[in-house]
């Protein structure tokens, strides 16, 4: 016994000493061994469980002479990484009891010394193996290299070499010599040696993994001694991969001690599963090489992750092939790395990322890239938008600072891009730059919450400086979907809100017509309107007047004005308190639900009749023929010119949509016909319909934003139901137009809202309008 003998674990009479220094359940086992009588020779150690070998390794002393050359001081460091275990070992572990310890065995002299150590459970090990970045079949565990180790191995490759899987794993022990049945395939990882020694093959094929993601198949492997591969299905039909990427595999060449140039790694990618059964791999140049590979139907995320990690320097290929698939992108995003510090391919920044849970969101920022690089916005869920498809605008700040690097490529750096998907607030958001091969993250952010109220969302998105040429793209591809969903949700919620009713002056018995007058922003026109309505004997006796207060801040004012007007004029008035702001359509529809008369006359609060009899005139027109669906009225500006004498549609080539126009607007009125005549559409500022028809066509559409196009939409619905639209001219009505809308938001916002509604209207009616109306340029 040597007094300086190291702390010996195991049998104290053994010629060996050693210690297990680390037992990391997540990593592996590391330690050292030393032959007390001879420190120079290699020592074989094995990792064992229940008398079965999990892994073997030959280690050599690495610190010889460190303590004065005593052989006893020559330690051989070993390290078994769990991740480096052969998958066959997994079967061994699974077979063993969970509490069966793992031991390290010194096998050189046939003596066995055991140190029981903790080990991960079989399940944990399986996950670890599924996701290991290396440690493939026949791959030496990189971590086995001792720190500062030097080449001392007889193969001249590394400190230790692996025993090839075949020697450890009974089921796959016999290397295939070809001639397999076509119907059979093996589950990776495996390799077949067609020629050469098992530990130094001259013709071999290894399949590391096959995974499936979103229907696509990825197969990673390597081949020694052959330079081509053919893939075929069970019927011997060729199933060439959509992409076959070749790449060096120095890990394999090191492991086998084969020169780099004889080994080719590959990744074969099929966008869809190429065969129902296994895929046969052959080589034209080397017919004796042959293997069948089972294709998985499902792959655990860790397997995909591992494969992508192995290909992390080729991620751009996957992004190019599968960039639109959230499952793929989520997998890519799990392994992608940050941009190298000095890269000059692409730059970008995320300034805002605002999402609506369940709907996705809008990313705003800037990006600049070389022409063969693309920048993609991606979120954690894998939703993507290539910025080449997003509206772009010039950013003077970016241009100034990046001009020295990117020159004119930094024009139009600004972008706003919609990502579909879950839009989970708080989850990650990236800009990914993808070049010909590599891809990396150039900017990171997190989704923050976007407004859930459609008007507030619109205020934000329409404040972005999207150039007019991209406006339609922006609305239809990027923000329209978000707004549509919010507008729809809001309309549905608002319909459920009950209204309040305030009636003044009793009610008209058996009314023939109900005036529905929405109030928003101001009650300033009520006194004028009521004064005239009160002076009309027909209105006083047969018309129900409903003011729908669509502005909760205005209820008090409207109610007291109604009380005052009823008191002063004796005109019975009903105020319907909408309780919430419902918009033009919602307010009118609400009024219609409270109307008692068979005719509905929708009237803006800023339309003032100047002579009695107009309601009767419009009703007579509506009754004049059974196919009359709606009746409008000529409206004049306060200065006397025509404001409305029927709507028309005009094609605007620049906008790519039909605009509502007011033919004759601003001109002095022509002599009024006493008979109502047909129009394409009429304004909702003064529109009469039978309640049955109004209900049959579904009333005013509540899915326009704030207010616009609802009237022409309603008229087009009426026309689509086979009815005609008339307009009366021999009435005297003043329209103090747009007084009630002047106060909402910035001009940019109002313009955005108009375009949003315009394109919604166009999607719905564009074809019908084009069929029935001349594509005349917008009349101006």
């Amino acid at each position: 016994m040597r007094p300086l003998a190291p702390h010996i674990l195991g049998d104290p009479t053994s010629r060996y000493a050693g210690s297990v220094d680390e037992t990391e359940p997540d990593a592996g086992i590391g330690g050292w061994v030393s032959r007390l009588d001879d420190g120079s020779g290699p020592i074989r150690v094995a990792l064992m469980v229940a008398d079965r070998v999990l892994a073997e390794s030959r280690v050599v002393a690495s610190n010889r002479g460190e303590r004065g050359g005593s052989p006893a001081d020559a330690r051989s460091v070993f390290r078994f990484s769990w991740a480096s275990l052969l998958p066959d070992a997994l079967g061994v572990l699974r077979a063993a009891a969970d509490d069966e310890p793992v031991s390290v065995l010194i096998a050189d002299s046939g003596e066995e010394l055991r140190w029981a150590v903790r080990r991960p459970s079989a399940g944990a090990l399986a996950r670890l193996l599924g996701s290991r970045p290396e440690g493939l079949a026949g791959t030496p565990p990189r971590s086995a290299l001792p720190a500062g180790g030097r080449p001392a191995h007889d193969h001249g490759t590394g400190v230790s070499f692996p025993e090839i899987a075949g020697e450890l794993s009974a089921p796959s022990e016999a290397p295939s010599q070809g001639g397999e049945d076509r119907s059979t395939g093996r589950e990776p990882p495996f390799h077949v040696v067609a020629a050469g020694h098992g530990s130094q093959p001259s013709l071999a094929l290894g399949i590391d993994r096959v995974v499936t993601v979103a229907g696509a198949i990825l197969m990673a492997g390597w081949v020694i001694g052959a330079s081509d591969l053919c893939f075929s299905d069970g019927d011997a039909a060729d199933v060439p991969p959509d992409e076959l990427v070749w790449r060096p595999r120095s890990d394999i060449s090191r492991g086998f001690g084969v020169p780099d140039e004889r080994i080719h790694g590959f990744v074969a990618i099929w966008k869809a599963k190429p065969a129902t059964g296994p895929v046969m791999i052959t080589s034209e140049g080397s017919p004796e090489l042959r293997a069948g590979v089972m294709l998985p139907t499902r792959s655990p995320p860790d397997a995909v992750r591992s494969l992508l990690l192995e290909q992390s320097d080729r991620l751009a290929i996957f992004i190019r092939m599968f960039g639109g698939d959230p499952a793929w992108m989520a997998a890519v995003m799990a392994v992608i790395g940050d941009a190298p510090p000095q890269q000059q391919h692409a730059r970008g920044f995320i300034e805002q990322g605002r999402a609506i849970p369940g709907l996705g969101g809008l990313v705003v920022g800037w990006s600049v890239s070389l022409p063969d690089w693309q920048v993609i916005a991606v979120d954690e869920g894998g939703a993507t938008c290539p910025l080449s498809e997003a509206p772009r605008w010039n950013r003077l700040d970016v241009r100034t600072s990046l001009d020295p690097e990117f020159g004119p490529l930094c024009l139009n750096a600004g972008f706003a891009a919609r990502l579909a998907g879950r839009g989970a607030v708080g989850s990650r958001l990236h800009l990914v730059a993808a070049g010909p091969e590599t891809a990396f993250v150039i900017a990171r952010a997190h989704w923050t919450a976007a407004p859930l109220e459609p008007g507030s969302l619109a205020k934000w998105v329409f404040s972005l400086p999207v150039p007019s040429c991209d406006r339609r793209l922006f609305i239809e591809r990027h923000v329209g979907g978000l707004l549509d969903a919010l507008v729809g949700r809001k309309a549905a919620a608002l319909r459920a809100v009950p209204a309040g009713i305030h009636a003044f002056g009793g009610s008209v018995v058996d009314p023939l017509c109900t005036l529905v007058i929405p109030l928003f922003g101001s009650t300033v026109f009520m006194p004028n309107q009521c004064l005239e309505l009160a002076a009309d004997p027909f209105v006083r006796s047969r018309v129900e007047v409903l003011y729908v207060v669509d502005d909760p801040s205005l209820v008090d004012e409207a109610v007291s004005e109604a009380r005052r007007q009823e008191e002063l004029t004796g005109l019975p008035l009903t105020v319907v308190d909408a309780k919430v702001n419902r918009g033009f359509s919602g307010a009118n529809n609400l009024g219609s639900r409270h109307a008692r008369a068979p005719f509905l006359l929708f009237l803006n609060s800023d339309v003032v009749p100047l002579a009695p009899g107009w309601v009767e005139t419009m009703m007579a027109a509506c009754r004049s023929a059974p196919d009359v669906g709606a009746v409008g009225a000529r409206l004049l500006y306060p200065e006397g010119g025509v404001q409305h004498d029927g709507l028309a549609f005009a094609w605007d080539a620049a906008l790519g949509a039909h605009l509502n126009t007011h033919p004759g607007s601003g001109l002095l009125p022509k002599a009024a016909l006493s008979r109502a005549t047909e129009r394409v559409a009429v304004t909702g500022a003064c529109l009469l319909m039978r309640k049955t028809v109004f209900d049959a066509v579904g009333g005013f559409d509540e899915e326009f934003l704030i207010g616009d196009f609802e009237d022409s939409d309603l008229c087009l619905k009426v026309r689509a139901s086979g009815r005609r639209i008339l307009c009366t001219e021999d009435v005297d009505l003043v329209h103090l137009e747009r007084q009630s809308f002047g106060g909402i938001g910035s001009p940019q916002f109002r313009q955005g809202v108009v375009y949003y509604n315009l394109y919604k209207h166009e999607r719905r009616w564009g074809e019908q309008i084009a069929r029935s109306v001349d594509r005349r340029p917008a009349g101006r």
Partner: protein
Amino acid sequence: MRILVLAHAHPDLSVGGAEIAAYNLFRALGEQVGRGAVSFLARTDLASVQLGAIVERRPGEYLWRQEMGDWFRLRTAVPAALTRGFRDLLERLGPDIVLVHHFSHIGIEILHEIRRTLPDCLLVLTIHEYMMICNHQGQMVKTVSRQLCHRESLQDCHRCFPDHSPERFWTRKHFIQKHLEAVDRFVSPSRFLRERFIDWGLDPDRFEVIENGQPLAERAPFRRARADGAFVQRIGFFGQLTPYKGIEVLLMALGHLDPATRGKLLIEIHGANLDQQPPDFRDRVGEMLTTLSRSGIVRFAGAYDRVELVPKMSQVDWVIVPSTWWENSPMVIQEAFACGRPVICSGIGGMAEKVRDGVDGLHFDVGNAFDLAETLARIAADPTLRERLARNIVEPAGYEEIAGQYLALCRSALETDQGAVHGTR
């Protein structure tokens, strides 16, 4: 025939021209058709009267506590008072004729209410100023530039009041004119005002000119020249010292007088309420008054009571009305004529109509201090001019005569308007 005269104030409590005219019309009508048949209702702001209530001050005279709620559309603050106390009074008095002299501080809705409660009565509205046309306190003077305004338009009014859109001005005009449809006859004390309202849209066939009337006064003789032959003519300014009454033009003109003229004129300022005016105006006028008083050409006499007016006016040789707005029929002109004093006035509007240039007075270019200085020099140089012009003065009509004209108008209207049609156009 029962008559109700309605005014925006009672002369017991307020001394404006319109309420004095209305009250005196009430008194004179009482003389002619019987005291019991004529009533007078005046708006008041007396705190002792409950808001909206109508109280009887003396037999046939009522005070109505009312307020204006909206000066833009001239709407009442207390609509309930129209449909309760006021309607009750109308029903109780049951007048065949209602003569409305003003609805400011009450609300234009009274016209509609009178028509609604008394569908067959004859409703006559006497218009005393331009408030219905012009939101600028009825001055028809531009808000910022102080330029004279010749006609209302939605755009021009909006330019004077950028906070009110043209459409709001449309609602103003529409609302006011809609209420005027209740009126059968319009009366104005001046042709000038009548023309302005016809331009604005009122029916010329239903619009007559009747003066406000004056108490009959003794025409006082002119003062004689002093024994030493020195003769200083006195020119009196009577009225409120507000920016639109033109006091600044007058004082500035005095600064432009040549020394020869200066010794021959004395300007007496009988005016009140300078302290209530905007600070810059008040300071400018105060400074000029001090300087000119020191030089002896101005005597600041301060405020006067109505009963002192005739004696004070009899002490001057000329009355000056240098207003920088149109005026209607300024009471001071009527009073000057009643006292037999020629009037120097701005040559515009109601002033130019009532004072005949070179006949019973002299015009000068409105707002033009140099022109006024020349006019004053002419007066100083010609001591006999005052008497020559005074001889042409036509004595203003007394209240009796005015009441007679109103009665004649009403009788003719009642005859022609059988089954009355109401309308502005």
